[in-house]
């Protein structure tokens, strides 16, 4: 939580970044260490908590049965909603966090799902039960408990972890439905009968923050306060760019933009493997406790 930086501290920060050594000793492209916890909300279909430095977020996935959209009868729906808790930072008090919450929700939706709901992250056709009549709707909610910069990246990791933890119960259709009648169905209560998600296609988001003439990965709140612009790039395991969001008032030369995208691609490789390793470690921890 940054109260305010004196002119001398700001200069120290920007000089350090220009020299390649940040205030906590990290290089320009180093991520902070993060920890993942799964299944922290037992009533949800899937949940995760991710802590990166002092940034702390919780995500949960709830699945409900509903009608699919008429234009897309063989696909379910996914909605993402992020909320910044008023206690996360002083500027979130009251309704101060609403703008940021909306921005984060839109950015995540665009990067993971794309505007019309289809996208790389989740195979929506796996959510159908009866084509045209019944489908699973996923509601992904995120809560920012504490903010020390880089919220978008952490939320993307948390969404990926929550999806990996999600179990959809099996639905048995007991009677075939005629054209307008409602189908009879039974939802299995057996926890072993749940089907999970394959999250290997879910991208991670790398936010590159431009301070002066250099860009850094995983900025703390101090560093974000000195940024001129920031680009968040969603990259999946195949190295493809799934979404780009730009923040900040300064404009960027297109060549700089292309360079930042290639940097993000490079960094995403190690981040994806770290995220997968952390999620697997969290799963085995959870299995040990059961």
């Amino acid at each position, binding site marked *: 939580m940054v109260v305010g930086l004196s*002119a*001398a501290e700001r200069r*120290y920060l920007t000089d350090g970044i220009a020299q390649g050594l940040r*205030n906590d*000793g990290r*290089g320009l492209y180093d991520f902070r*260490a993060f920890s993942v916890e799964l299944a922290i909300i037992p009533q949800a279909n899937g949940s995760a908590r991710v802590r990166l430095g002092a940034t702390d977020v919780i995500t949960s996935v709830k699945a409900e049965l509903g009608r699919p959209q008429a234009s897309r009868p063989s696909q379910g729906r996914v909605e993402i909603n992020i909320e910044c808790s008023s206690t996360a930072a002083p500027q979130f008090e009251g309704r101060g966090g609403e703008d940021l919450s909306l921005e984060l929700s839109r950015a995540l939706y665009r990067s993971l799902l794309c505007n019309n709901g289809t996208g790389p992250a989740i195979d929506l056709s796996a959510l159908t039960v009866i084509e045209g009549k019944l489908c699973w709707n996923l509601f992904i909610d995120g809560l920012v408990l504490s903010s020390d910069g880089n919220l978008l990246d952490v939320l993307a990791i948390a969404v990926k972890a929550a999806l990996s933890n999600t179990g959809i119960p099996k639905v048995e259709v007991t009677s075939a439905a005629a054209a307008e009648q409602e189908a009879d169905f039974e939802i299995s209560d057996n926890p072993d009968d749940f089907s999970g998600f394959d999250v290997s296609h879910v991208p991670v988001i790398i936010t590159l923050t431009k301070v002066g003439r250099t860009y850094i990965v995983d900025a703390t709140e101090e560093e974000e306060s000195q940024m001129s612009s920031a680009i968040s790039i969603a990259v999946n395991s195949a190295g493809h760019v799934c979404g780009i969001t730009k923040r900040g008032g300064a404009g960027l030369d297109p060549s700089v933009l292309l360079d930042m995208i290639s940097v993000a691609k490079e960094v995403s490789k190690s981040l994806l493997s770290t995220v997968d390793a952390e999620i697997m470690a969290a799963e085995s921890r959870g299995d040990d406790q059961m």
Partner: protein
Amino acid sequence: MLSAVNLPGGIQRRRTVIDELNMRSLFEENDLISAEVQSVHSDGSVHLHTRSLKYGKLTNGQLVKVPPYLVKRLKQHFHNLKSCAVDMIIGCNGYIWICAAVDSLPSNPEIEKITGDSGAPEMDSCNESISLKVRENICRLANSIRVLSALGFLIYPDTIIDTFDASISKGVAIKDMLGAEFLVMIAEREASRRTKNNYML
């Protein structure tokens, strides 16, 4: 409210209203200064006092915040670490300032502005940039303090320098100092030290 200023040359002058109005040219909001607390009043206002020229505006370094109860009460708050070319100010409020040692910066005798109560030593060194070696030392010290704070150990120069030396001798990179391995290593060192001295853990 301004009581008295030290002009360069060491002359002291009583306040005038003009001085109070011109304070903004010396200090602005969000400036970081070191001072002594003279008194805390019942309405919550604090009277600060800069007794000598070593107090004043802080530049060329970074601030580390730790819980105040971890700071050991010592006679001296200003520490100079010659081997690292770094100065440290350990405040009782948990704010620890680490900066490049003043004599390691090339001095510029022409710049002798009035900076309120700080005279020659800590002047407005806008044009000084810190070498990478000194910056690395500052980062390493800052991380040593963060490690001690995370482990809940008492913070004073001996422990800080001890952690600093341990990280160098074990070849730990600065950014890895905040990772779990180094924290465990420091905790084990402290545990073995305490059992050797027969402290009750």
